[in-house]
């Protein structure tokens, strides 16, 4: 049976003419372009609206585990609308090819203690965050490279904000801002 099928295929191939090949080429060429177009559309959506991403690395424990979790990133945030306590993704100031996620803890104009533990900087060292910059710290400070090493981060490097965890299903849910206003006069969070 298979030999007869092969013979039929060979016969149909032999009967193809040049015009047929041209027609086939045009058809599949157009289909290829359409696939490229759809890929571009999905990529643009992911870059400008939002998409899901796999996160890895120990710096955000226990908010996110070191591997295998999937989160939804919102790309439609303006850096000016961010608040203290938000989980923000930004391009690493040390390596332009890496995107990192940390918690925003200081806004422009805030005075911040570089490292209260005194491990990376004397615990008395304070800096004023300059205009257009913010301060980021990983939730797992022991295993994180963040503003304590490289200082305030320009808002131009900010990509988006993490909104929710989608995988694993047992841990799925929205990320909540964990900052609490302790009611110091003249302050607002």
């Amino acid at each position, binding site marked *: 049976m298979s030999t007869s099928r092969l013979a039929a295929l060979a016969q149909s191939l032999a009967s193809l003419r040049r015009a047929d090949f041209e027609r086939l080429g045009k058809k599949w060429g157009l289909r290829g*372009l359409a696939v490229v177009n*759809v890929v571009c559309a999905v990529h643009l959506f992911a*870059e400008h609206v939002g998409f899901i991403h796999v996160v890895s690395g120990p710096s955000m424990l226990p908010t996110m585990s070191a591997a295998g979790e999937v989160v939804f990133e919102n790309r439609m945030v303006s850096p000016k609308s961010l608040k203290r306590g938000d989980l923000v993704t930004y391009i*690493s*100031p040390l390596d332009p090819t*890496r995107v990192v996620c940390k918690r925003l803890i200081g806004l422009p104009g805030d005075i911040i203690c570089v490292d209260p533990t005194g491990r990376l900087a004397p615990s008395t060292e304070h800096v004023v965050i300059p205009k*257009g910059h913010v301060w980021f710290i990983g939730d797992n400070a022991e295993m994180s490279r963040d503003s304590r090493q490289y200082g305030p981060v*320009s808002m131009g490097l900010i990509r988006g904000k993490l909104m929710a965890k989608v995988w694993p299903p047992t841990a799925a849910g929205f990320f909540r801002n964990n900052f609490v206003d302790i009611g110091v006069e003249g302050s607002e969070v």
Partner: protein
Amino acid sequence: MNPLRKGVSSLRQSWKKVKTAYPRLAWTMSAMVWLPTGIAFNEYFYSLKFVSGRSMQPTLNPDDSAWRDVILFDHFSINWLQKFRRGDIVALKSPHEGKLIVKRIVALPGDTIKTLPPYPDAEVRVPEGHAWVEGDEPFRSEDSNYFGPVPLGLIQSKLSVIVWPPERMGALLPPGDPNRPKPLTGPARRRERDEIDRQKRREARVTESPQPRSFQS
């Protein structure tokens, strides 16, 4: 017949009706379908933009030019190839305001640079993942002498070709590059000599790091 197929075939039918009734609208709509490819090309490969302002004089927007320059911006070699070279003119987000500015890369990670006046220190070592950018006209430019080294992540694209005005049309090569055209007379020649002088003065302030740039985080 399954419902999906039914839906598709009814869509085809109505599209045919639109095509015969409003041929111009149908043409516009079928052209719009290719918009994502066009936008992605503009964002990740090449785009044309106006450059305004005087900070890159005399290379861009010289005083004797009646138009604003139109430049071909190359996103591919910055975003994908991560090719940063001293002497390249790049577009970057200003670290304080976030608006797009055009400057020249003077020093790369590991280099040591002698700074110009507004900067507090006389000499700086450019940190890992950062670059030192300056305008060609230091007195009209807010550059690294004002805001310090900038993260490479802020650099968006490289300016590669002047498209307009026609008399300066051509590739944007660093001054002194052997492939640059050598004008023999007039203001173009004076400008060329001036640009080479500036480039030499810039280069004299940089001590290049012996190791090639490395990426670690």
